[in-house]
């Protein structure tokens, strides 16, 4: 390994190769319970360095896991087979923002927050604000085909890629697309790399579609005694043609807990609804708001509030965003985890039942649950809230996870719609996609990465297992083979 470290240093410089144990430990975690310590972390500063690093890794068969902000929810940026973490966060220049062509050209390590801030300064926007916006990089967002808060209106990020530069394992620098807004030229490889979670190549540049930033915006929220009414209201908003940015629901347990902890005085309810929208002028915004308010009230929404300032906005979003703060207040030491049932998707007509039943499944095993839903697009985010020192809780989490995924499939849903498979869903992939699709995915992987060293151990591509050949952060963790029914 010493020889390889020296080779890497000669490519990127001494200061860009990190091997000390303390730093390697710091790179070993994400939201999942896994501990995966890399053998080295390598920072790269340009495409040429990426080509050379891949060359050395490939000729020595060393696993290489690209990393942006390391904010993955499902273990995708963990080096589960050891080897190299290729940290792209120092490759972080915004190369160009063109108002005339409505494109931005960026390096992969640019943070979403930094990028959006610069765009907004120029009256522009890249509206794919993932919940991890303070950490997530453009490379990570593209490689995860992320689904930002405003995915209801703007879709997944993949279709916003006009072009990209990708370095393949054999050193090829692949250029896809241009600053021309559309292309339809053979297989859509940008779409393939989007969501490939670093298993096919390294994204070293992106040409992204951007849009004008609307001058006025507002958030609107209300409380419902009944989740069916909430979902009916959300659907009526969609059918009205009002272009909301996002439509969201949070379950009653979470709303009530946060209201108590933060002293917000929210009414007791089975769920609350929050939506936000933009307008091209005040009149346009007010018109849309009045339509949304009427729909919410007509469907039984109580305390319908419109927020126009930062303070009120935060209050309305609190049930959706503050559960992690509230839970440590109510149950010190409790926290949430990235688990396999964190992002299923169900048909729109099943959302109310799914929110109720999934919460019930988790609670029936004796742990706490918060359930969120992007109501315009059917995605649910169940969160398990538990004590990581309690092995009963881990056992309960494992049982709940399996039950939720079986339930979701039974009502015509799918098991992963936002974060992707990563590592934590390895054991569910085959059942979820079927042998035929998995086999095709494996053949695609084989074309780009015949040695299987690009982010190995992910997306069920080279294993049907998780919890094997890996360390756990918590000693009370219950591995799959030890789960008690």
């Amino acid at each position, binding site marked *: 390994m010493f020889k390889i470290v020296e080779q890497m240093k000669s490519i990127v410089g001494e200061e860009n190769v*990190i091997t*000390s*144990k*303390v*730093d390697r*430990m*710091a*790179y*070993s*975690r*994400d*939201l999942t319970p896994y501990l995966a310590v890399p053998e080295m972390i390598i*920072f790269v500063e340009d495409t040429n360095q990426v080509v050379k690093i891949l060359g050395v890794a490939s000729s020595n068969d060393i696993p290489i896991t690209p990393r942006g*902000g*390391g*904010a993955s929810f499902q273990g995708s940026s963990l080096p589960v087979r050891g080897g190299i973490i290729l*940290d792209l*966060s*120092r490759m*972080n220049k915004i190369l160009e923002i063109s108002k005339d062509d409505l494109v931005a050209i960026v390096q992969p*390590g640019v*943070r979403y*927050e*930094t990028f959006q801030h610069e765009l907004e300064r120029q009256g522009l926007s890249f509206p794919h604000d993932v919940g*991890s916006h*303070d*950490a997530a990089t453009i490379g990570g967002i593209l490689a995860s085909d992320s689904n930002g808060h405003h995915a209801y209106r703007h879709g997944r990020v993949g279709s916003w890629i006009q072009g990209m530069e990708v370095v393949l394992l054999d050193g090829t620098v692949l250029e896809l697309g241009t600053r021309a807004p559309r292309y339809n030229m053979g297989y859509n490889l940008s779409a393939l790399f989007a969501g490939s979670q670093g298993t096919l190549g390294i994204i070293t540049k992106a040409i992204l579609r951007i849009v004008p930033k609307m001058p006025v915006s507002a958030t609107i929220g209300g409380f419902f005694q009944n989740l069916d009414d909430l979902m009916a209201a959300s659907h009526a908003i969609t059918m009205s043609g009002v272009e909301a940015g996002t439509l969201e629901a949070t379950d009653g347990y979470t709303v009530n807990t946060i209201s108590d902890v933060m002293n917000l005085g929210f009414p007791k309810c089975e769920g609350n609804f929050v939506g936000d929208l933009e307008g091209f002028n005040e009149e346009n915004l007010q018109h849309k708001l009045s339509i949304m308010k009427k729909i919410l009230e007509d469907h039984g929404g109580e305390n319908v509030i419109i927020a126009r300032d930062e303070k009120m906005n935060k209050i309305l979003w609190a049930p959706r965003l503050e559960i*992690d*703060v509230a*839970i*440590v207040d109510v149950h*010190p*030491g*409790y*926290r*949430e*985890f990235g688990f396999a049932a964190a992002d299923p998707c169900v048909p729109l007509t099943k959302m109310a039942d799914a929110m109720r039943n999934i919460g019930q499944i988790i609670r029936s095993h004796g742990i706490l649950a918060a359930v969120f839903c992007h109501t315009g697009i059917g995605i649910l985010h169940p969160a398990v809230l538990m004590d*990581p*020192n309690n092995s009963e809780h881990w056992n309960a989490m494992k049982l709940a996870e399996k039950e939720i995924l079986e339930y979701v499939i039974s009502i015509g849903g799918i098991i992963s719609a936002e974060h992707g498979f990563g590592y934590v869903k390895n054991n569910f992939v085959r059942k979820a996609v079927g042998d035929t699709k998995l086999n095709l995915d494996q053949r695609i992987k084989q074309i780009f990465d015949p040695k299987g060293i690009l982010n190995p151990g992910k997306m069920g591509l080279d294993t049907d297992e998780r919890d094997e050949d890996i360390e756990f*952060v918590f000693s009370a963790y219950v591995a799959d083979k030890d789960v008690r029914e």
Partner: protein
Amino acid sequence: MPIEEYRHVIMECVSCGLCQSNCPIYKQTNLESNSAKGKMTILYSLLQGWLDWDEVAERMYECTTCKNCTATCLSGLDIAAVVEAARAELVERGHGNAISKDIAKNLRETHNPFGEGSDARERLKELART
């Protein structure tokens, strides 16, 4: 308070990374060990016996205790308090950082952080008059 007393805070960190973009140290280096996320993993590793005190010392001193991380922390954690507790224990265990040791010694001996005598103060007064 020994760092063990902060174990529950350290465990409440979910490793989400929301503390990264505002951290003045992390912004300089992009090294995850410099962010609050990295520091909590490092301290957890210390509590588990996977790292020793001498291995963690340098990273613990790389913090301004500005609390920017708390402002964006998903779980609202007071990271600076944990870092300060770690530093206090580091000092007790003989891993105080060199500059702090010098400042403490100077203050004890000359009542001046730079180790200058009272004549330096007089010189300042002179300067102020001119």
